[in-house]
């Protein structure tokens, strides 16, 4: 009797393995038949810690694809998005990239983070598929190879001009610098700010470390509160930025925060409320629905209608990423990555919704001008338009 039970379990186990194998077989069928449609892959997280960046990227991409197909498609074909979730894990990032490539995508948009972009970049480069990251800002991304691009605002261009603005226009001399130490974007941006602050003769009176996922910032804010400074430079993402400012106000400080486009999401004031009023964010994306013009304004309005929320930076860059690829394919007259990667490289003064993009000689994106946005009454207003001088 007992032995029978064991055997049953074994059979069940083996059946499962069999199901696994056949299940895999089913997944690979669509490799062929890539002729009627052009496939663009989405690489990002729909679950896990990075889901908040992956989900809006995908929403932006979906909107772009709808726009393209409504206008008659690309090279006479419909465009489809092939999507999958890597639950914010590097190892699954590699698997998903490989899977997208097997499914016959000509280009991949993603990953929103620098880390997984580097993993995926190596795979895409060796497979000869274009990868355009709509979020990676760290170093060593486009260096992977000539199939790898990104459409983000590069902090190494923006941070110095913003620092100059803070000193010359706002008269800041002393600042507090807050870094999220488990966030590669934040660590990199803080490094850039340290350099540019030193160049402009500004002083960092206190540096505080936080971590992504932290909820309690009372210790850091109390430690800052004894110091004299003109403002806070916060290099992390919007969630922690909003909560950090909440704590700053709760402890009775009245400083404002300045940060990069990691702060650019409506969640900033949704979480931060009054505490983030007056906070400033620099970006290439004219996110102010009142001040925005042309394409960007149209995008913000339609996005809001479609999803019932304001687009954040990831959504805008996801939209642009698909459009950049589509324009390159149209210009090349071919959906062969080896050909349209060349036209993509020549993109210059391209009007996107997240800013005006030119790919430099090193294939790095140059977005000019930089918009300095300010939070006012729970919304963005453009405080300054700063050209990037090269």
């Amino acid at each position, binding site marked *: 009797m007992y032995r029978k039970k064991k055997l049953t379990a074994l059979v069940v186990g083996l059946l499962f393995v069999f199901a696994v194998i056949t299940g895999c077989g089913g997944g690979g069928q669509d490799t062929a038949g890539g002729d009627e449609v052009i496939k663009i892959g989405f690489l990002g997280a729909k*679950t*896990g*810690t990075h*889901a*908040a960046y992956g*989900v809006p990227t995908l929403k932006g991409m979906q909107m772009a694809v709808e726009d393209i197909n409504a206008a008659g498609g690309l090279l006479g074909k419909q465009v489809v998005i092939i999507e999958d979730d890597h639950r914010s894990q590097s190892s699954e990032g590699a698997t998903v990239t490989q899977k997208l490539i097997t499914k016959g995508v000509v280009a991949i948009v993603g990953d929103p983070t620098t880390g997984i972009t580097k993993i995926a970049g190596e795979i895409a480069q060796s497979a000869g598929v274009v990868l355009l990251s709509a979020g990676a800002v760290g170093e060593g991304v486009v260096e992977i190879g000539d199939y790898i691009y990104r459409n983000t605002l590069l902090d190494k261009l923006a941070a110095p001009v913003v620092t100059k603005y803070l000193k010359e226009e706002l008269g800041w001399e002393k600042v507090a610098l807050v870094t999220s*130490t*488990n966030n590669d974007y934040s660590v990199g941006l803080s490094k850039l700010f340290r350099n540019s602050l030193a160049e402009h003769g500004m002083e960092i009176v206190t540096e*505080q*470390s*936080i*971590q992504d*996922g*932290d*909820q*309690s910032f*009372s*210790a*850091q804010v*109390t*430690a800052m*509160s*004894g110091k004299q400074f003109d403002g806070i430079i916060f290099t992390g993402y919007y*969630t922690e930025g*909003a*909560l950090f400012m*909440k704590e700053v106000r*709760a*402890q*009775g400080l009245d400083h404002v925060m300045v940060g990069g486009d990691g702060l650019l999401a409506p*969640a900033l004031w*949704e*979480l*931060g*409320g009054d505490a983030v009023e007056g906070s400033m964010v620099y970006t290439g994306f004219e996110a102010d629905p009142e001040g925005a013009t042309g394409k960007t304004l149209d995008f913000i309005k339609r996005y809001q209608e479609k999803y019932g929320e304001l687009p954040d930076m990831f959504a805008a860059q996801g939209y642009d990423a698909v459009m950049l690829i589509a324009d390159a394919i149209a210009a090349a007259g071919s959906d062969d990555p080896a050909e349209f990667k060349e036209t993509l490289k020549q993109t210059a003064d391209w009007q996107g919704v997240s800013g005006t993009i030119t790919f430099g000689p090193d294939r790095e994106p140059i977005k000019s001008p930089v918009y300095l946005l300010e939070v006012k009454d729970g919304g963005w207003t453009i405080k300054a338009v700063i050209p990037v001088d090269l």
Partner: protein
Amino acid sequence: MDLQTLLQQMINGITLGSTYALIALGYTMVYGIIKLINFAHGDVYMIGAFVGLAMVVMGANIWLAIFVAMIACLCVAVTIERVAYRPLRGSIRLAPLISSIGVSIFLQTLMTLMKGPQPVGFPKVITNTIYTVGLVKISTVQIVILVVAAVLMIGLQLIIKRTKMGKAMRATSEDLHTASLMGINVNAVISFTFALGAVLAAAGGVLVGMYFNSVFPLMGVMAGLKAFCAAVVGGIGSVPGAVLGGLFLGVAEVLGVAMGLGSYRDAIAFGLLILVLLFRPSGLLGQPEQRKV
């Protein structure tokens, strides 16, 4: 660091620590009775925060929100125990542990699907005034957290020491088999323990949501792990130990950050845990375990 900053940081630490303590109590009670590290407990806390948030959004005041969250978490925790742990009682020790990890993954994904991955802000439910008491400043929210935590912990202590059910709980944690031979309905006691733990975690979830102003599906992961450390530091199985451990951990973390070790914040909690384990393996207030031949 001057005295004023130090005292201020102590207040910060105690507030943080009392939220750890509220979660830690659930770990410690369950472990005390069925020797299970219930990894889904942090997610019960997360669900408590979401239910509380939903109530507040619907216009309830904070007390009603806490109450409803408590009831909801009670149901969730008792169901989890019934479905995922009870069938595994009496099998190898690791079986319910793995099951609890499965439940934890399930709940996290479920909430991500239902509520989205983005943190959600908590509407203002209490007008937050900052009082200056002597050298330190303390806010209304902090006072509410400290008072609610204290009341709940005293209530818990009374239940365990003064009621018949409490007596049954103590007997069961001493020896489950003997207790059942003495006519104690062990299953009821275990369900009750899970319910108590969940009620405290729910309160913790709503209070933390209100204090830190954000609620998200993965909020139970680190909080749960740290609270679990607190339970071990205090002596797992000991109720006053969990409270002490929570406060100790909260204060140590805050002081560590204040001294500029912010990037090592998580390491502080775990470093403390290892130190305590090495020098007092049964925790600060735990009973040393005897190895029987």
